């Protein structure tokens, strides 16, 4: 129905996560309607991002150049490493503004069903970083899912001889009502209670 070039654009947009056929068509028609310069800006941004952005040599987060902004920042605490699954997991932790250490991005979580083994993640790189010394604490901030927990337990086993290993606490969200908390979350909050 569409001319082949437009059809190709729709097909490419449809490959994006969360985008179905109809949304892809809407986006394509939008790109055809706006001034040419605006559409090309998007194309340029994609080209530039793919040319310039790679993985940080140190923590495997996204970086423009060899090091990401966190690893390049001399004010960051080098004695702490926070381990996350994906680069996007860094953002919420940065938003807390209460973590001043560095990161390590594993690039996913262990899942043999999906063919993800320890070799497929940046685990050996993490162990080398810690073995080099100067790291006092590693915070495991993988997701509290089956695969995230398994990944945390695997990484913890490897790092324990070299550094203090901690896991993000899980419990009640701030401002939540006890009455509406689910049993598992509340159970964990009870298990992880603290002295006041």
């Amino acid at each position: 129905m569409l001319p082949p070039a437009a059809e190709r654009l729709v097909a490419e947009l449809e490959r994006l996560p969360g985008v179905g056929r109809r949304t892809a068509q809407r986006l394509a028609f939008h790109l055809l309607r706006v001034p040419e310069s605006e559409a090309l800006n998007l194309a340029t941004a994609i080209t530039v991002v793919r040319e310039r952005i790679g993985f940080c040599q140190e923590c495997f987060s996204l970086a423009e150049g060899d090091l990401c902004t966190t690893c390049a920042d001399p004010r960051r605490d080098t004695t702490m490493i926070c381990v996350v699954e994906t680069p996007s997991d860094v953002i919420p932790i940065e938003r807390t503004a209460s973590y001043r250490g560095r990161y390590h991005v594993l690039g996913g979580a262990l899942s043999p069903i999906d063919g993800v083994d320890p070799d497929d993640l940046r685990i050996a790189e993490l162990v080398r970083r810690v073995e080099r010394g100067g790291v006092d604490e590693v915070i495991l901030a993988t997701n509290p899912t089956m695969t995230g927990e398994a990944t945390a337990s695997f990484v913890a086993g490897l790092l324990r001889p070299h550094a203090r290993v901690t896991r993000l606490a899980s419990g009640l969200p701030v401002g939540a009502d006890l009455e509406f908390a689910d049993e598992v979350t509340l159970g964990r909050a009870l298990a992880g209670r603290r002295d006041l």
Partner: protein
Amino acid sequence: MRIEHLRLRGFRCYAAAEATFAPGLTAVVGANGAGKTSLLEAVHFTLAGYSPRTSSETRCIRQGDAFFRLEARAVSGGQERSTTAALQAGEPRRLTLDAKPIRSVAAFAVAFECLVFLPERLAVVQRAPAIRRAYLDRAVVRADPAHARETAAYGRALAQRNAALRRVRAGAATAASLDPWDERLATHGSAIIEGRARLCAALAAPFAEVLRDLGGGPGAALRYAPRVGAAELAGALAERRSRDIERAVTGTGPHLDDIALAEGGRELRAFGSQGEQRTAVLALLLAEARLVTERLGEAPVLLLDDVFSELDADRRRRLIMVVRELGQAIVTTTEREHLPAPPDTLLTVRAGTVTMSV
């Protein structure tokens, strides 16, 4: 806890019908295919939020109708509650509790307890261990809803460990990659073993009592003997690792356990007659009903489908006595003569109509 009134529209063979239930024993009498089981199914739908008979619930919609709708009035914890269940083909079922829409059937489990016997439940005694495990796990969840997550998590961890075993055997991963899955499996597996052991310990005495009251022989036993104890699971997985890698399947853990049901020192599965096996399944259900009564201070609603067949006159009489002691029960039968005593309500079912006779 009891159901007082049920209204059906477009459900199974019922175009439009209603039924009133007395607090004690209600007998539903009718020929084969008249709609006795469907009436029980409708009651279960309004008290539990789903069909106990089928997972494809659109089959409950009467032929030629576009939807079904059930409305019930019940009493629970001394309070009058109203529920509705409706389903239109191709749409999710719509449930309400006290006129508020309910998304999860868990809300029904909190509001009502309703235990059901269907003839296919005989499989619990007769067939493979997997069926007994599933039955037991559901009973554990009924007593402790949070346990459902453990069962689900164990299933996921087991699938991951088996996948990891295959990858290790194929040389795609090292044996160390099994460590985190052993740990996950041990964590959730121990919780499952403990939950089952707790429930079986609580059920064992009432099971023996009820089985005796139902006319069963002495020496009734309900035993959960896990092949590995909760505390030893982690060690057992480590010990089995090389054999598990060879076979690429996890050879120990609660997913392989069985529950022994015995009477007079004989395994019912191997030695019981049809009548004895039926009595044992009923005893299991009624023992759970006693536990529920203790926990809530109120008896669950019992739905018993075709319980009298294969039972002799003495066992039928005993069954009704045990059931009457508990609370409200709705019992179906093809033969009115099978009823050992007149029920509190007699509902006669014929071709999609329900008539009440006193």
